């Protein structure tokens, strides 16, 4: 029982990060019908920016909370700029070409970022430990039933949850209550009609990329503090977040959050509770199995709408 509760908490904590990344996939897919393959690498770039900022801030001796918020803010702004550049120079010129062309370009951008950051003069191929801005310790600890082992929630998990919930509130306010959000929904509902209604679609698409990239950056910083910074960290995390977006129904914003949390839960339960420890490594493969199953049986995902191909 203790194990179960602990794994559920861990799963939600991992899943919240997946949800942040999945939001970027789902929003871009919503407006452009493009799988932004490079999104996972934007998350990696966020972690790397945070790494350099944190190393630099550590020497300045500012209070922890100032450091932490500056690191998050810096990474988010850096990645928003990166998202804008990627959209402007790699995707925008190809917008009227067949979708496969954009997909190959997206793979190219992803490879470019991964390999650029593996260069010694940029970051280096080896994973590096994140500078200890705050030390990880148990923030909340409680007992379930009569189990002698306590369920622990670390302060990182708390920051993670608070941050993710705050971002969700901000995001839903932006999407549901502002004019830009209205335009974003219009563009994702029907691109051409939205353009005819006087919406500057180029600007909305750029905004979508920046918003998604900033969310990915926050996810990157959280994971960097939790694990380490690795130029290839975006590959698997990006894929899993994509799977999460598909499970939730790609194009649907609440779906991405739901899918992310589900994904984290499935993974952590498989790893810790369901699979025997010898086989726990197979949990990585389970994500892709889930993707294939969902694509086969319900391609529109949990909250997505079914869109048959018209001639």
């Amino acid at each position: 029982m203790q194990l179960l509760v602990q794994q559920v908490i861990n799963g939600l904590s991992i899943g919240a990060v997946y949800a942040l990344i999945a939001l970027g996939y789902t929003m871009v897919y919503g407006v452009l019908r493009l799988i932004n393959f490079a999104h996972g690498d934007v998350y990696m770039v966020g972690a790397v920016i945070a790494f350099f900022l944190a190393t630099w801030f550590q020497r300045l001796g500012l209070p922890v909370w100032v450091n932490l918020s500056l690191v998050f803010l810096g990474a988010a702004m850096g990645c928003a700029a990166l998202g804008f550049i990627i959209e402007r120079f790699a995707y925008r010129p190809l917008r009227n070409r067949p979708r496969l062309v954009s997909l190959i370009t997206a793979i190219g951008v992803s490879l470019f970022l991964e390999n650029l950051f593996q260069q010694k003069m940029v970051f280096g191929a080896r994973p590096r430990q994140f500078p200890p801005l705050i030390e990880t310790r148990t923030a909340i600890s409680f007992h379930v039933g009569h189990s002698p082992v306590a369920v622990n929630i670390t302060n990182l998990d708390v920051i993670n949850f608070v941050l993710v919930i705050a971002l969700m509130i901000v995001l839903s306010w932006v999407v549901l209550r502002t004019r830009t959000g209205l335009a974003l929904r219009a563009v994702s509902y029907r691109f051409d009609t939205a353009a005819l209604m006087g919406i500057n679609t180029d600007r909305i698409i750029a905004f979508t990329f920046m918003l998604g990239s900033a969310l990915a950056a926050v996810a990157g910083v959280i994971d960097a503090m939790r694990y380490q910074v690795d130029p290839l960290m975006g590959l698997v995390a990006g894929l899993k977040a994509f799977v999460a977006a598909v499970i939730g129904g790609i194009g649907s914003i609440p779906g991405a959050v739901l899918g992310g949390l589900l994904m984290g839960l499935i993974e952590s339960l498989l790893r810790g509770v369901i699979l025997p420890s010898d086989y726990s490594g197979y949990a990585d493969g389970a994500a892709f199995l889930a993707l294939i199953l969902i694509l086969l049986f319900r391609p529109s995902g949990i909250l997505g709408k079914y869109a048959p191909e018209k001639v």
Partner: protein
Amino acid sequence: MGNADADHPVRAGRLPSWVINLFLIVLVAIAWPLSRLFDSQIDPYFLDLIIRIGIAIILAVSLNLINGITGQFSLGHAGFMAMGAYTCGVIAKHHAITGGASVPFFLGVTLLSGVVGALAGLLIGIPTLRLRGDYLAIATLGFGEIIYVVLTKIRSIGGCEVGGAAGLHDIPTFTNFFWVFAWGMICIVFIWRLVYSAKGKAFYAIREDEIAAAAMGVDTTFYKVTAFVIGAFFAGVAGALAATWSGNLAPGSFRFMRSVEIVVMVVLGGSGSITGSILAAAVLTWLPEQLRAVEQWRMVIYSLLLIVMMLVRPEGLLGRRELWWTRRRAIPRATATVAPP
């Protein structure tokens, strides 16, 4: 993308086909003594390059059948290659036959590796080929990753060492110039004849417009799965050749990156052009050797090439023409000749 794709010449050339067949057989037969000569005379570094180019050609041409010609964007080619490589590696390591029987033995093992690859292709193809474009890419990528995860976890099958995450080492080497050349010829000729036959038009039809092809009576599922299985077969063979050439197998070398390398060859050469794939495979294997100084920047350059190529010339170097086709013989641009009613 255009939709008029009707003018592919069905015949490979003007010569009668038996002359071409005889020529090809003689060509493969010559490779046998040539291979002996190469083994003893040629610079091993140069031979290594030739063999790797040959393997890359098999991979690129077989992927071209799936990605370029049938238009089903697959990112799992390295997974099929891994299936073949591990089949061959495990058999060669534990049940190798040396001496006179080694030639039929190795032929059998490469064939078996190809069949294992093809079975994996069939198993993966039937469910995933229902998906379109980008979803298919992700699903095949997922399968590639599953194969990788499984390979890192399995240490032995039925008492035979498979290696797990550490990889499989000290595999006896069987591959030489002859094997790579012969399999390369088989792969190219097989796919060429298939694609430029009357039935081969179905593959192009599916790429151009799947719904229209189905409406014209093309069994799209059958042709898509066929392309997938044939491509996977040759990927398995290429894996087997690679395994018994280097003697070492690591699961990490069959990940996403490997698939992308092959995709880059197909895309740069021209999706749908067989000679384009051959050319790109040769150049992209040879070029990094010449650029040792920038070896570590290789993938950066590859990815930039890919992006620039898509921006400037998305159809690849040769487009969908073959090397010696003149522009006039190539497919005419799509022209709307039928007025809407």
